């Protein structure tokens, strides 16, 4: 049995340039409550405390988005994404616990699990469910992946989520990683796809058949870059071979709500997303890459490839301009 985890109101906030409103959070949560998704994640695209000049300012505070979701969810759990280095325990995590968030996902770049120790341990001590998230999971070998995932489980994470943050994987790579982790770390494995190469739903389904206990998706695929696995498509595919407790009709209502509310912000796979997927660069950089390449008259592919060569990780938006200027010999 695989649970579907809904990131529309968090990863989708990248597509909305972090302008998500508490009104839409309410509308969406009321529509999605009881649909069968295990949780609805809400917040800034980079999670708690990430509203910033660097990544983009949120239209509303974490508190107001979380409160709106909390008031609108009865059956479905409420979750948040947290990146240490952006969020702190005191300023961001403790208040979110007090607001009644059910699941915290603590995320680091795939090689940096140790910076999450304090945050995971704090939440475990508060008796809150914690998932460990390894972002940019294509940037490490299998042995390293197992080592980093094990660190997070030692700290107390009860599930490990692999993020294909660059939308880089092919199904066989997903399968290899999910199976390797499932066989070694002793906790549930989750997978979070991006659609840069048009593979998000296929990769999500490959994770299901490789034994992932959790698969992420978003209504209409609303997410960073070319978006996430389209949640309603994942469920429809899942129901071909499995019995599910989710309601496809309700998923389709959620999808229609997103489609009609954000007709111009819906993500798609385009030339730039294929370039970034191939280069293995964080999907969330798409707006900055588009803006800076057009401002400086630079080819987007050249910029994506250089960002990939420099090994940029999430949170380095400010380097894009410097690298673009280097390429232009400015």
């Amino acid at each position: 049995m695989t649970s579907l985890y809904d990131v529309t109101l968090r990863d989708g906030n990248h597509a909305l340039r972090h302008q998500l409103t508490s009104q839409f959070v309410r509308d969406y949560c009321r529509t999605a409550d009881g649909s069968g998704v295990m949780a609805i994640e809400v917040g800034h695209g980079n999670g708690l405390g990430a509203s910033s000049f660097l990544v983009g300012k949120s239209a509303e505070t974490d508190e107001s988005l979380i409160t709106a979701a909390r008031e609108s969810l009865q059956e479905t759990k409420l979750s948040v994404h947290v990146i240490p280095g952006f969020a702190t325990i005191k300023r961001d995590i403790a208040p979110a616990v007090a607001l009644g968030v059910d699941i915290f996902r603590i995320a680091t770049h795939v090689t940096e699990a140790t910076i999450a120790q304090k945050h995971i341990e704090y939440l475990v001590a508060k008796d809150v469910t914690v998932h460990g998230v390894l972002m940019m999971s294509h940037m490490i070998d299998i042995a390293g992946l197992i080592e980093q995932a094990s660190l997070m489980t030692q700290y107390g994470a009860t599930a490990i989520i692999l993020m294909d943050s660059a939308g880089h994987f092919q199904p066989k790579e997903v399968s290899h990683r999910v199976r390797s982790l499932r066989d070694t770390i002793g906790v549930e494995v989750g997978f979070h796809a991006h659609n840069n190469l048009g593979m998000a739903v296929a990769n999500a389904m490959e994770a299901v058949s490789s034994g992932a206990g959790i698969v992420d998706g978003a209504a209409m695929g609303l997410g960073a870059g070319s978006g996430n696995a389209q949640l309603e498509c994942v469920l429809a595919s899942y129901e071909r071979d499995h019995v599910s407790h989710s309601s496809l009709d309700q998923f389709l209502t959620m999808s229609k709500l997103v489609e009609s509310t954000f007709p111009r912000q819906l993500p798609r796979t385009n030339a730039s997303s294929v370039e970034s997927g191939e280069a293995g660069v964080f999907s969330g950089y798409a707006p900055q890459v588009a803006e800076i390449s057009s401002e400086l008259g630079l080819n987007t592919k050249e910029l994506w490839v250089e960002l990939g060569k420099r090994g940029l990780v999430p949170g380095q938006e400010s380097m894009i301009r410097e690298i673009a200027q280097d390429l232009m010999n400015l």
Partner: protein
Amino acid sequence: MSNSKIPVAVIGSGNIGIDLCERLLRDPDFNLVALVGRRSTSPGLARLRSKIPHVLAGGVEEFLTISDQVEGIFDATSAFAHQSHWSQLSPLGKWMVDLTPSRIGQPLVPVLIGKSDSMKIDGTNGAGNYSMVTCGGQSSAPLLYAIASHSKGIKEVEISSSIASLSAGPATRLNVDQYIESTEELASIVTGCQNVKAILVLNPADPPVMMRTTVTIEADYFDLDSIAVETKRIVMDVQKSVPGYEVVVAPYKTTRNRVVATALVRGAGYYLPEYAGNLDIINAAAVETARRHVSALEANIVGSRL
């Protein structure tokens, strides 16, 4: 500064402590009398045993037996350890420079002494405790000062730093929140703005990346010409003790009411590699702070004799 060398001790035999010792050994103003560690097997202690008169493995307790031989102490351990070191050592009445983000001492950025109201050395107090805050704090403060001193109505301040994963030791990794809080506190002091945010990103790229710090200030008004001049001037000051500090994106105004600038810090390579500019800038600041403190004390003594 008088002709006699300042006798000092370094506590902490990790990477930062050893780099600091190498720096002090080559500095004509200092006489490094003691290096204090906790483990006799520490490779740092072994490396420097022949170069420093007292290389001690018995921690601060052992150091107390020879502490009368030094005037000042550098603490390069951890924020947690500094708490107990300060309570053990403050009764000695010596100055201390704290390289951890403990937030116990007075936050100090040497290049801003005399420029910013909060950056002062009291020449009448021989026993100060100076905090070097964080690498993000030391690398952002000069830019924040240059921009903030020529803008009006500052609304918000942000500092984001990326450092090489290899340069972040276990203490830093366990204390990312403490890093953020200390860096934010310093940014508030330098800019006078309470609405501040610090972000830290660890980058594992190979070859390792040089540290970069980007500052953003949102304000009602900027005097961009003066900001450009001030930035050049202060960067030259920083480069006197941190030659690898350079502005890679000069202050520019975005479409909104914000000015953004980025500095890169390349390490001097005393002991730590070049990519550890984040550690280099803290060590350089610590040595410079000690030098300025001792000069201020001497000036005060000379002044009172006249």
